[in-house]
């Protein structure tokens, strides 16, 4: 997602507007500056931080984040600029004249050391009992600057109560360093607006509306704030202890499903460069940990495509043939629980536009505790279903009261990539060293269509592959099934595909241009909803929305850190893996055929599907009492 165009930025934090000199060609649009002893040329307006990075000079940062606008509040990135009385923050200072910069003078080092000392003096927490141990920006800075004691004392009592109200996000403000990255994430990047700085002076803290518990405000559980928090002040609600208990309990049959995005990112937790999938290795590791069965969420992703695709065609039919004006188009995807909560809060009057299909995670839970339980003759009461997800909102989703179609809680625990990595480490396993193995039957090999759900545009691409073929009897007309208009990280993508020479049963769709929109990040979702409100989506049929920037691969449960570059690499890993798969269309997945023939016998969107695989939504609204 490109930050310049898609983020609403309060004036205070807007990117610096720098007036270009009249004749920019005279200096070639670049400025020659001196960093330490080195003369370098940089484009006009580059920040000192970027200029230094380009030239391999490391400057520490805390409040700076590549996804977010500039804050300039932590002050750790200060440098000396000749001629200026005070130190300047390199993250916010644009180069507009031939300045001389010193990045490591005594004054600078002392200031940075002081700032770390100050942050630590107020930081209530112990690294060895902290989930960010060894992956914490504050801790690394303390190490980098050789802090070996508290120069200005140390807080002995926690100042804030830890907020554990949310099913997804835990807030421990005692570890907060007030970098406001979460605030900028929630307000600017996601446009949800849950967090802000409250009070002033020494009482300043990050809080919610009226400092209410997170569960009582309009948080959509996307967890994006966690991914950008430099410390452990924000973390996901970790169910791993309960999962360990279930694994240790011989009576329980513990089943795990793994989503594609965690597999494409979990290597990062083990020191591997972003961009490598560890699907096979993970399967082995999970079995060694003690999961009884390891399934692939892609199976229900395929199932989702069948259900959601069928629903779309039905809606189209009602609109095109029956002219039924009560049917809403475009149909919006429903697999991102953060997006679901977003629309429930912000656009409750538009819930009819949502596909009623459950997310793959929830479909899987329902299928396991019914179909799988029956087939393998296990009492569903003894089955514990765990979902390995890239997502924090999945934790909330599986706890929704309506998610018990099987008669039990369909999915018992949503586990994030980070938490999974921790469990694997705890079991003494180094993931990259594991031999590869396959998923368990009966849901064995899923199609590649399910795999690409992990990237923004993936659901759309998978759906088009199936819908187009169902309707026309031909493969989508894209080389190697790569539907390029669905791919890439542009905030909102819009395209259409023409349905012609339709097979007989679908000839009511002859000549229809199937228009679709793909958006990721709720800030973009908001834009799409505003378009809908203005009536600009009348000729659009299908909209895919993912709450997180980049789609699931940028989910709130994914390894920290995150940046567009990292997200791109994860996407690349997913697309590469999918091209190597034998089956790449949901409807060609043999297990899908099997389940419709033997269990969901009245077909997609049939009665049993409706009971197990579809859901309804709640009008939540924004008002907080």
């Amino acid at each position, binding site marked *: 997602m490109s930050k310049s165009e898609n983020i609403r930025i*309060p*004036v*205070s934090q*807007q990117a*610096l*507007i*720098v*007036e270009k000199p009249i004749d920019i060609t005279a200096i070639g649009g670049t400025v020659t500056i001196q960093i330490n002893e080195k003369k370098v040329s940089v484009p006009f307006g580059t920040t000192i931080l970027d200029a230094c990075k380009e030239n391999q000079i490391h400057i520490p940062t805390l409040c700076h984040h590549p996804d977010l606008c*500039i*804050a*300039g*509040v*932590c*002050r*750790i990135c*200060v440098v000396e600029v000749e001629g200026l009385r*005070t*130190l300047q*923050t390199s993250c*916010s*200072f*644009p180069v*507009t004249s031939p300045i001389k910069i010193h990045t490591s003078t005594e*004054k600078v080092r*002392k*200031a940075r050391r*002081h*700032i770390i*000392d*100050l*942050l630590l*003096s*107020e930081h209530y927490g112990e690294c060895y009992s902290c989930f960010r141990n060894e992956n914490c920006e504050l801790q690394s800075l303390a190490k980098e600057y050789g802090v070996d004691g508290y*120069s*200005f*004392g140390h807080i002995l009592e926690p100042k804030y109560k830890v907020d554990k109200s949310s099913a997804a996000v835990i807030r421990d403000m005692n570890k907060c*360093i*007030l970098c*406001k990255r979460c605030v900028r994430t929630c307000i600017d990047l996601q446009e949800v607006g849950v967090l802000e*700085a409250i*009070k*002033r*002076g*020494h*009482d*300043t803290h990050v809080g919610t509306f009226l400092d209410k518990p997170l569960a009582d405000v309009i948080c959509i559980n996307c967890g994006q704030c966690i991914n950008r928090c430099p410390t452990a002040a924000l973390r996901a609600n970790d169910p791993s202890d309960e999962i360990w208990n279930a694994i240790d309990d011989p009576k329980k049959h513990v089943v795990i499903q793994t989503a594609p995005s965690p597999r494409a990112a979990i290597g990062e937790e083990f020191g591997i460069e972003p961009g490598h999938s560890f699907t096979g290795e993970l399967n082995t590791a999970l079995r060694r940990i003690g999961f009884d069965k390891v399934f692939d969420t892609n199976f229900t992703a395929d199932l989702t495509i069948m259900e959601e695709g069928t629903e779309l065609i039905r809606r189209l039919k009602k609109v095109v043939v029956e002219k039924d004006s009560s049917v809403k188009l475009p149909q919006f995807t429903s697999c991102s629980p953060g997006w679901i909560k977003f629309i429930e809060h912000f656009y409750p009057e538009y819930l009819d536009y949502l596909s009623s299909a459950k997310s793959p995670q929830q479909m899987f839970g329902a299928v396991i505790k019914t179909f799988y339980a029956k087939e393998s003759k296990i009492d569903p009461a003894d089955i514990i279903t765990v979902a390995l997800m890239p997502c924090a909102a999945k934790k909330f989703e599986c706890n929704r009261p309506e998610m018990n179609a099987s008669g039990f809680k369909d999915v018992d625990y949503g586990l994030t990539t980070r938490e999974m990595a921790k469990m694997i480490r705890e079991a003494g396993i180094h993931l990259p060293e594991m031999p590869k193995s396959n998923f368990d039957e009966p849901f064995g090999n899923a199609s590649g269509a399910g795999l690409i759900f992990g990237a923004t545009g993936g659901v759309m691409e998978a759906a088009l592959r199936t819908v187009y073929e169902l309707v026309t009897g031909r493969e989508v007309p894209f080389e190697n099934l790569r539907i390029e208009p669905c791919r890439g990280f542009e905030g909102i993508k819009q395209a259409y595909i023409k349905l012609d020479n339709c097979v007989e049963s679908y000839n009511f769709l002859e000549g229809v241009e199937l228009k679709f929109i793909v958006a990721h990040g709720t800030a973009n979702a908001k834009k799409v909803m505003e378009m809908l409100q203005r009536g600009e989506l009348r000729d659009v049929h299908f909209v895919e929305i993912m709450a997180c920037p980049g789609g699931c691969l940028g989910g709130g449960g994914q390894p920290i850190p995150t940046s567009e570059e990292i997200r791109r690499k994860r996407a690349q890993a997913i697309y590469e893996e999918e091209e190597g798969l034998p089956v790449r269309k949901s409807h060609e997945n043999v297990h899908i055929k099997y389940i419709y023939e033997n269990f969901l016998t009245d077909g997609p969107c049939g009665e049993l599907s409706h009971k197990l695989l579809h859901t309804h939504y709640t009008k939540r609204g924004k008002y907080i009492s």
Partner: protein
Amino acid sequence: METTLKTSKKRTGPVLFSNYQQADGIKKAIELGRENILLELKNSGLKGRGGAGFSTATKWMLSAAANAEKKFIVCNADEGEPGTFKDRVLLLEYPELVFDGMVIAGFTIGAKKGIVYLRGEYEYMLPSLEGFLNKMKEENLLGKNILEKEGFDFDINIRLGSGAYVCGEETALIESLEGYRGEPRNRPPFPVNTGYLGYPTVVNNVETLASIPHIIYKGGEWFKKNGTDKSKGSKLFSVSGDCGKPGVYELQWGTKISELLEIVEAKNCKAVQVGGASGVCLPKSQFNRSLAYEDAATGGSIIIFDESRNMLKILKNFMEFFVEESCGQCTPCRVGNTKLLEGVDNIGKGEYTFSYINNLKELGKTMQAASKCGLGQSSPNSFISILDNFKEEIFYSNRKGIKNVKE
């Protein structure tokens, strides 16, 4: 007693309190034209009276040169520095100076709108100030085609603050005007380019603006005759604390502290705080210093302490002020001030080592260098100067005979 909005007492002084007839400055300004106004201003050497001391002519030139569809003049009437009240006197007794100054500023840089950011504590002035503005409108000193000059449009609005000292900082003030928390912005860009709502904005102190009509009407040369080489003109000093005649005085820049003490009838004076809580505290040995940008600089606050005062308690009062009034966004200031206050408490309890004290002073220097705005950059001033200048009393004396500020 409820303060009366007194206008009866006639003040006298070399510049600001000299004679001025409303509108004279505006008329002269129209006569001179923009360029000549800027030249006159440059010649006068006027520097900002709000504390930072930036050349007013330069500020105006930069925003006059900026190309934008809208520009704004903001009068900074947030006067919140402890011990400062000269702007109150100007607004109550000399509103014509301040408002004429704004009109001239608008004319010069091409702004059509002026905003007075009046601190919430001064809300009681609102009726009289608004009445005054209405009168100016009736006299065509505000509104469209001012004094029949085609295209010379200017209006003034008064906006209230809501009790936050930091909003006196010009970029925090702009944030506050825009409806946000009063958190200072990153600089660059500067308000002269990117100010209120992103438009070029000149923020000037009340006293700076009040000097303008005099300078324009009577000339930069006349103005420059007052003051010193580097500090031209005169200055209003707000004098409070232990003295016989507290109040506002217009004195020449360059006046010695000892001379001022005499004028205000201060006796047994031990220390003088120059520049308010963000300023420095000077001991007797430095009373021969002169009040000027190049020596003891100040936005005008002079607080006098006599021999009976406990310097540590005074310092504590200052540090409490900063801990509360910091906007809280940047680390050095938010946490640093707390640490300095803790230090003062520890000294009071006798729980300190000198290396700890030195650490704190070093921290103070970091705050001066690395804080985002002037608040954090100047809040350690009192800490460092009081601990340095009153070592004897704070660390070595047995405190006999020293009366506590708080019992």
